[in-house]
């Protein structure tokens, strides 16, 4: 739309062309360059995780285990889960868009600790290197959940190194969270009060709190698992005097909040997109902001809903069930407020908005099926079936990845200085939406029929759903490849991006595209609320 408006003054230096040496990238402390380092790294890991997903989907076209051996299949889904969760979804939005935008949105020159930010990327790369080493030297067959005592004493994969990789990746995440908390607390520009923070920042603040508080528990669980695996110290295996349920408590104490590490930043992105492409202030701004905090707090109290059939006390099940219902309420509040934001707006359907609308739809379905899973009686049947697989892919892929793609398109002009081809953007967003539903909707049915997860071979009556799912996955893959191609294309051939192609509010749009190394020519001062799309006063409802 606004792509035809050329910037009036051609600025010559920006963060991309300020320096060109390899060293200037690998030793940079510029949050924008680090965001790009992350963008390249997690894109590679996403592609790798996607390759394992394709292996899984091809294997499952037929009921027999014919393409891969059982051990190879178990390695494929383990690598898919570990890579996608720890090396793509957890860092995805925070480490790329968050890294790029948190300082710009608060009006600061960089994050609070630029060198720690670089350290966090090096930790991530180290962890990823260890994981790749695991992959080429035999892989791991524990699943991403590492349930003991299977993983500690029975697995024939490379458990020790995998545990080390996840342990290191966790510290990368802790450091990112720490940086965000301190930056948002201490480096806001004059006038940027808490009540004026864009919702993207509220979401990242809530995410950072979870990263800092929950990830150490994952580190502890991984350390204990490593101790039992290497030294046979009895912590989880009852044959050595341990308790296998303890591992599940420790693991889910991190891994359930981790679900919100993955989805909260996506909610932040969607709030920005809906506001911009409706040209409206987010309806119920403070409710959406506090819903993020409510989700962050409640997320620590629901881990036991992964254990309704584990043999934990039925009364514990009762408590975890009701708390899980409670965490659904702030999510519902967000969905209603996003929808209400569109009321009497000025709505355009650029690619980022298509992703945002897709997010609302798919996240709603993921959330409602989550409510079914929180129901004690129902969970007993669908636990560990494809129903659960479908549910969390609706949240993780339909939610988090859709928001990530939407955000990437929205801020791509700012990041790269170029416009992506809008028509191809809309086509690929539509393909991804359709391919996603074809891939994962049939899994709800297969799951309710009883197909267990992590099955290499399955009874023939489930085949029709698996064939549909595999067909959808190939469409989804095409949808994901298209942006990869046209983003690269746009760097060379795309139209030069104006400073503010979407006529959006927010400090990041008040500087050049791409921004100079120091972000702003003059330290910004904030005089108005977030999403100030009209000078008219709102009537008091």
């Amino acid at each position, binding site marked *: 739309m606004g792509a035809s408006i050329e910037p009036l003054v051609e600025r010559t230096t920006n963060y991309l062309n300020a320096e060109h040496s390899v060293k200037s990238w690998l030793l940079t402390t510029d949050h924008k360059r680090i965001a790009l380092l992350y963008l390249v790294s997690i894109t590679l890991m996403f592609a790798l995780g996607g390759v394992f997903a394709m292996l899984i989907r091809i294997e499952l076209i037929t009921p027999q*285990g014919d393409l891969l051996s059982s051990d190879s299949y*178990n390695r494929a889904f383990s690598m898919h889960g570990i890579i996608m969760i720890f090396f793509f979804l957890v860092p995805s939005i925070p480490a790329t868009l968050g890294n790029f935008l948190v300082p710009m949105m608060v009006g600061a020159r960089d994050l609070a600790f630029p060198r720690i930010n670089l350290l966090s990327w090096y930790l991530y790369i180290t962890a990823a290197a260890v994981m790749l080493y695991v992959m080429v030297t035999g892989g791991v067959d524990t699943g991403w959940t590492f349930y003991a005592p*299977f993983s500690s004493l*029975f697995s024939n994969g490379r458990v020790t190194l995998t545990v080390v990789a996840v342990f290191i990746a966790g510290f990368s995440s802790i450091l990112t969270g720490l940086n965000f908390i301190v930056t948002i607390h201490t480096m806001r520009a004059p006038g940027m009060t808490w009540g004026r923070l864009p919702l993207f920042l509220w979401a990242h603040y809530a995410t950072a709190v979870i990263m800092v508080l929950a990830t150490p528990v994952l580190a502890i669980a991984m350390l204990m698992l490593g101790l039992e695996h290497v030294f046979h110290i009895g912590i989880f295996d*009852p*044959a050595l005097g341990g308790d296998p349920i303890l591992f599940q408590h420790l693991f889910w104490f991190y891994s359930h909040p981790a679900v919100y590490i993955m989805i909260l930043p996506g909610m932040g992105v969607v709030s920005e997109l809906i506001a911009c492409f409706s040209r409206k202030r987010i309806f119920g701004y403070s409710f959406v902001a506090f819903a993020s905090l409510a989700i962050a707090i409640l997320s620590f109290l629901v881990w036991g809903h992964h254990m309704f059939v584990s043999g934990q006390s039925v009364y514990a099940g009762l408590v975890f069930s009701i708390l899980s219902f409670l965490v659904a309420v702030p999510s519902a509040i967000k969905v209603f407020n996003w*929808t209400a934001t569109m009321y009497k707006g000025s709505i355009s359907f650029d690619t980022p908005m298509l992703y945002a609308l897709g997010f609302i739809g798919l996240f709603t379905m993921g959330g409602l099926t989550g409510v079914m899973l929180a129901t004690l009686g129902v969970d007993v049947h669908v636990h560990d079936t494809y129903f659960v697989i479908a549910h969390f892919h609706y949240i993780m892929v339909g939610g988090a990845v859709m928001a990530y793609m939407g955000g990437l398109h929205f801020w791509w002009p700012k990041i790269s200085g170029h416009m992506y081809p809008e028509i191809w953007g809309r086509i690929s967003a539509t393909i991804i939406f359709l391919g996603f539903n074809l891939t994962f909707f049939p899994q709800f049915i297969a799951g309710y029929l009883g197909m267990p997860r992590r099955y290499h071979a399955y009874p023939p009556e489930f085949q029709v759903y698996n064939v549909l799912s595999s067909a959808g996955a190939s469409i989804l893959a095409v949808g994901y490849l298209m942006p990869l191609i046209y983003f690269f294309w746009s760097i060379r051939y795309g139209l030069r991006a104006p400073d503010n192609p979407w*006529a959006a509010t927010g400090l990041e749009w008040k500087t050049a595209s791409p921004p100079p190394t120091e972000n702003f020519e003059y330290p910004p001062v904030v005089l108005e609320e977030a999403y100030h799309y009209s000078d008219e006063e709102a009537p008091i409802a």
Partner: protein
Amino acid sequence: MMWPLTPALPLELWPLAATPAGREMDALFLVELAISVFMVLLIFGTIFLFAIKYRRRSPLERPRPIRGGLALETTWSVIPLLVFLGFFFWGAKIYFANAAPPKDAMQIYVIGKQWMWYVQHPTGQREINELHVPAGRDVQLIITSQDVIHSFFIPAFRIKKDAVPGMYSTEWFHATAPGSYHLFCAQYCGTSHSGMIGTVVVLKEADYQQWLAGGRGESMAVAGGKLYQKYGCDNCHGRICPTLARLYMQERPLSDGRIVRADEAYLRESILDPGAKVIAGYPNVMPSFRGVLSELEVLQLIAYIRSLGTPALAGEGEGIGAGQGTGTAAGIAAPDARTQQGNQNAYPPDSNPHTMQGERSSEVQKREGGEVRDKQ
């Protein structure tokens, strides 16, 4: 690999529920589904409507801002909350009913092992990857695992329970429709996880009686009695240690002042970890049998102790001959055969081609067995 069932229809959309509890769960699920579909249509419909009605007609449009209202926010927070609470109570009711087996339910023992289900009927029948049960009766399963965590899942009954090593879990059902149903392991357990499947056969009462008459082996209590003799338990029990007669389900004071009920979990713990809860007034002298006895042998010993009577039914079934089975080990002979050869590690029959686990567990067992001998 052979799949035991052929699908009746090429496209199945709704799974058969073969138990009343399963049908109630379906009802709850359908209500949740209906409300969810309504919500999805409402939200999609609203978005679609707004997207058409308020589409941007001019790039210069600057719509008037609208502030949210507390009343509206409260409405759309409280209504979902109330609906969720309804789901919660209904779901909890089903969950609690599933957790409490009726007192007179027949009990069947299930042991998971990489990668098979071992089923032991109290009357002596043994099955692998099959479970025969009568229609119209309450059946309670007592589930444990020999190695890693498995999960006993019968989709048609809508039940699932993890088989956790070192722990007895319980699950019950009341099957009404005779037929064959899938049995799956739902918790990932290693290489052949997807091969750890079987069939649950629900038989009419007459057919079930016929089946019972077919494959009767040594009853669990008789097998347990033999173990009791073999390990010389009566050298101490009844002399310097508590008598086992009428012990089952009795409430006994412990040396630390607590009171414990002698249920399956307590008996198992006292066999494998005797020092954990010592009955008041007795010395803590019993050696651990961890690594010496297999999970099945522990269950057999417990069955033997049960056969010695309960406090309520004093005097009933005293002595070794109390079990029903009198025949030789004619069922699945492998475990007994190996036990008779003195190989205590060998239960259940090892179909495991993956030797690492076998080596590891026998190594641990040898090590711990050695400790026991040292203590003795």
